[in-house]
């Protein structure tokens, strides 16, 4: 069984803010880390490998050269192989161009039985890459997967979270899943795997290796365009009350009315 895990490198904290005066991004601790949800994607793949010894796990990421770090991390936790998809032409990709590029890479890694993605990335926050990638590769998929088991060698039984409960599906392989934290606590790095990772030369693939036209990837291959980035309107200043309960009750009541809270 061959499993590909898609990993994204993201800024360490979502706490990026825009300086209201200069309208620029305040750079504080812009260290990059693995998207926290992607640890669970990796864990899901490694759990399958624990049970099915013939499983190979390949970690891939598209990003700048330093995105190699998240692949090193994945190798140190037990991934067998890693590919860095990196080239200037990939910059500025929207979710379509990202999915298109990842799809081109996965085609080169075929046969691939299962692709695992995180629930969403904490920076772009769209949760679109998993389903778009599956669609481009013409594979069935399931999002928000909480748990899965093999029914036989070519079918998974998955439980996915829905807004009102859960749904249980039978999913034929090859397929793609995006997983929730319920799939298992991410394992730590292992000593042996870390030693191996240090010697591992991560291949870097660009448009040429992928066999794609530079115009079909990155910003040029994107359908959406970010035209403006700005700070959210600051919420009204916080109101803090203390003192007489009767007065506070009145103030809260009229304030909530003003906010047009339904039911009042």
């Amino acid at each position: 069984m061959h499993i590909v895990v898609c990993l994204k490198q993201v800024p360490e904290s979502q706490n990026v803010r825009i300086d209201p005066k200069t309208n620029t991004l305040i750079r504080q601790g812009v260290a990059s880390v693995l998207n926290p949800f992607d640890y669970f994607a990796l864990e899901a793949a490694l759990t399958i490998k624990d049970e099915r010894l013939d499983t190979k796990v390949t970690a891939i990421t598209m990003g700048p050269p330093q995105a190699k770090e998240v692949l090193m991390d994945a190798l140190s936790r037990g991934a067998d192989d890693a590919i860095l998809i990196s080239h200037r032409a990939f910059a500025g990709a929207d979710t379509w161009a990202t999915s298109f590029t990842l799809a081109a890479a996965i085609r080169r890694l075929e046969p691939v039985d299962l692709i695992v993605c995180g629930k969403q990335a904490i920076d772009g926050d769209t949760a679109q890459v998993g389903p778009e990638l599956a669609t481009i590769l013409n594979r069935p998929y399931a999002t928000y997967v909480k748990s899965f088991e093999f029914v036989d060698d070519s079918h998974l039984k998955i439980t996915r979270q829905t807004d009102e409960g859960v749904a249980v599906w039978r999913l034929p392989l090859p397929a793609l899943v995006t997983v929730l934290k319920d799939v298992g606590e991410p394992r730590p790095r292992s000593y042996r795997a870390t030693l191996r990772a240090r010697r591992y030369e991560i291949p870097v693939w660009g448009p040429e290796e992928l066999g794609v036209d530079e115009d079909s990837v990155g910003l040029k291959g994107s359908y959406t365009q970010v035209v403006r980035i700005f700070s959210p309107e600051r919420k009204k200043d916080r109101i803090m009350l203390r003192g007489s309960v009767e007065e506070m009750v009145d103030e809260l009541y009229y304030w909530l009315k003003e906010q047009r809270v339904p039911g009042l």
Partner: protein
Amino acid sequence: MKPLVDKELCVACGECIDACPVGAISVGDECAEISDECTLCGMCVDACQYGAISMPDVGTGADEDLSRYKGVWVFVEWRHGTVHRVSYELLTVGRKLAEKKGTDLCAVIQGHKLDGVEKDLFRYGAKTVYVVDHPSLAHFTDEIYGNVLVELVRRYRPEILLAGGTSTGRSFIPRVAAMLQTGLTADCTELDINDEGLLLQTRPAFGGNIMASILCPYRRPQIATVRPKVLRAEPLDMPVDGQVVRPDLPGACFVSRVEVLEEQVLEGPGANIAEADVVVSGGRGLQRKENFAMLEELASLLNGAVGASRGAVEAGLADPSQQVGQTGRTVAPVLYMAVGISGAVQHVVGMQGSKVIVAVNRDPEAPIFDVCHFGVVADLFEFVPAFIRKIRKERGEEV
């Protein structure tokens, strides 16, 4: 590719150097220079007061005539016999967009045994309602829901398509966008038509710390999702005199590789917390299970639901189905009231998207006060009953 620097306009002031998150900009003698480190994030474009920096164009390559696409469509989500509220919210904003564009608002509804639900959509201004009623649409699957919507879009060519950012919409709309090879903007909080007639989509990113305005200039339809409760639903006084169209679709649309084995609707006291407009949550500060009764009374006065912190669930004061937070449910009601909850980060991530957050805690240093909009420093056992009395009194009820 890199952003373009207009040498005429650039004054070499260096503002953009600070704006660049990857340190790709330096300023030469005459103008800013951008290195290969650039990730095309666009921060410098906004930072430049002289308008000297602009982004290179996104992919053109539309081989189709965009003017053939007309109308604003809303995908109406049907769930277990009812229309999901987000669909009414979308029809309301869709109506305004259609007016601004001088075009029609249409709705698409898919499901099974949809007796008469389309009537309701005329009250929100839909001129045409496309109804696809088929046994294989009784349960949601990405494939069939996606195939049907794609087929309809190809046939009728709307220029704008809106859908709810629910677990359903967030799952299958990306499939629709990818099949149609067009752009998709997730979780918009504002939608408008810009001067060029394009859909201007504004959405938060980086966990709400940044807002981005996004266009899809060269592809159709322009597709956006919006989370429930972000916009308001406003019915018309008089329903429009619209038509119902029941398109005949090829059998291939209704084939799915996925088999639905089971669907479970979560039960328990917390079943509706994700949908409620008002959530009143209690923490360990409630001390005893019986004390949750006053939160229930308050919540029912406001047509709301009762949530809880993990502290309260672990202490046996509340049911696990009620837990809000990292290991519980994520809620984003119009009003979230945190009563006797300290505000641990694992709790906050599950409720920070709420429109109005009110905290009641006797400890003025409690971290919950850092995230709330209205903080009440008080003993909850005094405050909550007094607040209930106030609401009843205002309503003219016996207290």
